[in-house]
């Protein structure tokens, strides 16, 4: 191998080791340079470095050189024939070598510690939700005592977003649920000639259970996530701090309108869902089960007691409180970087859906025991 193709080589004269460096020592060739240094077999002595044949030297290559010398327990006795700019680069790296030797690692935890931290996080989350619920209740009481504190314009705007704009998707989804339910019930009921009871089944099933749950999940995904993203962005841009500094309460200005809008909107949307799913069932009942629309409506009138609808609407109002509180709280508590908004929004949707389903199970038992 000719000397020009080599990046570095050792020569010994009068017991003095000299490491000659040659060529372009820069980042694109860093792997070759490092391998060449490893192959050069640097002895554990005080080296003279000769940079006469260097055409380029950057900090990455200088670092590779100095670390290889350090790893071989060698030292630099003298620098010879380096250009001024190359000397400056070496000095810049040499001056910082002490700072970069140690790797400051993030602490690692065992699985038990991680489990413990998650349990504590969960406890903290629940406590802070409870705290937020309490503060919302106080703010709500305040608004009730001083109606002027209520932001009517914001309330109307939120109601529009949460309710009016959600109607198409709610109608579509619940209509299809009604179709599917009537179809599935119908296939079974037809075997026993009990066609007409499909109406009872669909009417009770949707108004009491399915419509509230499905609409609540849609709203959790739409509005719960939107609350978190909106409020989270406002935290990021310091708008919430600005509201506080102007002597206004973020609870009154932001949270209460969202909470009230959702508590009113969700039962209304559930009612829309009730009607729409019955319409869906009615559409397939005529061709599939020979139940005419007139007979269908008549049967709904007899078969569906009002209490089922009321139970469904009551549940919806409670779901709304949970979705609004979770959505707003998660938004208000994002930390100030863009990543945490994504994390909080995801968390909001998961928490809302889980809490809606848990609440529904709780209501199923309570209403059963109460005889509704």
């Amino acid at each position: 191998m000719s000397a020009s193709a080599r990046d570095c080589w050792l020569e010994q004269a009068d017991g003095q080791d000299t490491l000659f460096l040659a060529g372009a020592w820069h980042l694109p060739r860093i792997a070759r340079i490092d391998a060449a240094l490893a192959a050069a077999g640097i002895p554990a002595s005080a080296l003279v470095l000769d940079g006469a044949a260097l055409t380029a030297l950057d900090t990455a290559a200088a670092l590779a050189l100095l670390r290889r010398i350090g790893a071989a327990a060698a030292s630099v006795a003298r620098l010879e024939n380096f250009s001024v700019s190359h000397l400056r680069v070496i000095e810049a790296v040499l001056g910082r070598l002490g700072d970069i030797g140690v790797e400051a690692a993030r602490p690692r935890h065992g699985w038990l510690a991680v489990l413990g931290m998650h349990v504590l996080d969960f406890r903290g989350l629940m406590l802070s939700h409870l705290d937020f619920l309490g503060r919302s209740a106080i703010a709500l009481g305040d608004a009730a005592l001083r109606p002027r504190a209520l932001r009517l314009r914001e309330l109307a705007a939120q109601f529009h977003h949460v309710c009016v704009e959600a109607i198409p998707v709610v109608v579509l989804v619940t209509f299809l649920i009604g179709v599917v339910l009537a179809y599935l019930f119908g296939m079974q009921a037809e075997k026993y000639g009990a066609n007409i009871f499909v109406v009872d089944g669909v009417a009770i099933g949707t108004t009491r259970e399915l419509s509230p749950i499905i609409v609540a999940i849609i709203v959790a995904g739409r509005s719960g996530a939107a609350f978190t993203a909106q409020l989270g962005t406002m935290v990021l841009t310091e708008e919430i701090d600005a509201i506080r500094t102007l002597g206004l309460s973020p609870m009154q200005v932001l949270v209460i309108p969202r909470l009230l809008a959702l508590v009113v909107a969700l039962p209304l949307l559930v009612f829309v869902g009730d009607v729409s799913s019955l319409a869906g069932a009615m559409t397939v009942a005529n061709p599939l089960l020979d139940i005419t629309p007139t007979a269908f409506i008549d049967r709904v009138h007899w078969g569906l007691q009002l209490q089922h609808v009321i139970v469904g609407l009551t549940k919806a109002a409670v779901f709304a409180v949970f979705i609004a509180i979770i959505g707003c709280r998660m938004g208000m508590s994002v930390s100030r970087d863009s990543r945490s908004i994504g994390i909080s929004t995801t968390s909001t949707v998961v928490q809302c859906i889980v809490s809606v389903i848990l609440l529904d199970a709780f209501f199923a038992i309570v209403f059963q025991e109460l005889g509704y």
Partner: protein
Amino acid sequence: MSGAPVIELDAIVTRFGTQTVHDGVSFSLPRGQIAALIGGSGSGKSVLLREIIGLHRPTSGSVRLLGTDVWSAPEEELAVLRRRFGMLFQDGALFSSLTVAQNVATPLIEHARVPAHLLGPLVRLRIALAGLPVEAATKMPSELSGGMRKRAAVARALALEPEVLFLDEPTSGLDPITARAFDRLLRFLCDDLGLTILVVTHDLDTLLGIVDRTIVLADGKVIADGPVKEIMRVDDPWLQSYFRVRTMLEGPEMNRGT
């Protein structure tokens, strides 16, 4: 190393709708200098910077950066070019989901084949070169102060050993002490590591302290170009009032000193 200019702008014209921002801007920059681009709000400094680094296409005119025509070169050539310059955005633009060390390592892992045992030390060297303490490496960007965030962004911009560094208002939002330390960092990068630096700034102290050459944009043209001391004597109403603010502030101070 020296010789051909690093940046050459030729008759840059930029229009947004009917509004003309640049009306024939031309200048060239030699290697190894710190140049500052100044001008009033809306004079198109940041837009010009975005045109030089290939983020915004000028209406007409040509930009040559390190010998490559930014707006007509093929994509492969641009990909090579992008590794040869670094850009510091106004707010740092660090990736908020990564630690500082991971931010700095990203371009190294993507574009340079660094031996695994060197990657960690190299990342920490960049962080140290940018003047950050080694503890900052494991922090998230949101855990850093404004000045530290800018230094972390410099460390990332330095990752691939760029020849040119662009900075958009690096000292805005920093306290004077931090800002001057940042200026010294730029001077060190230029003098010791041989970088060519173009900085868009409003900071008079930066201009007077570390800049070799000042280019003044006004009314879509370069109205002055040269060392600050010469620029201060140019007879232009905007420039005169710009420097007068300084004289007003420092006047009494200077009198007391003498």
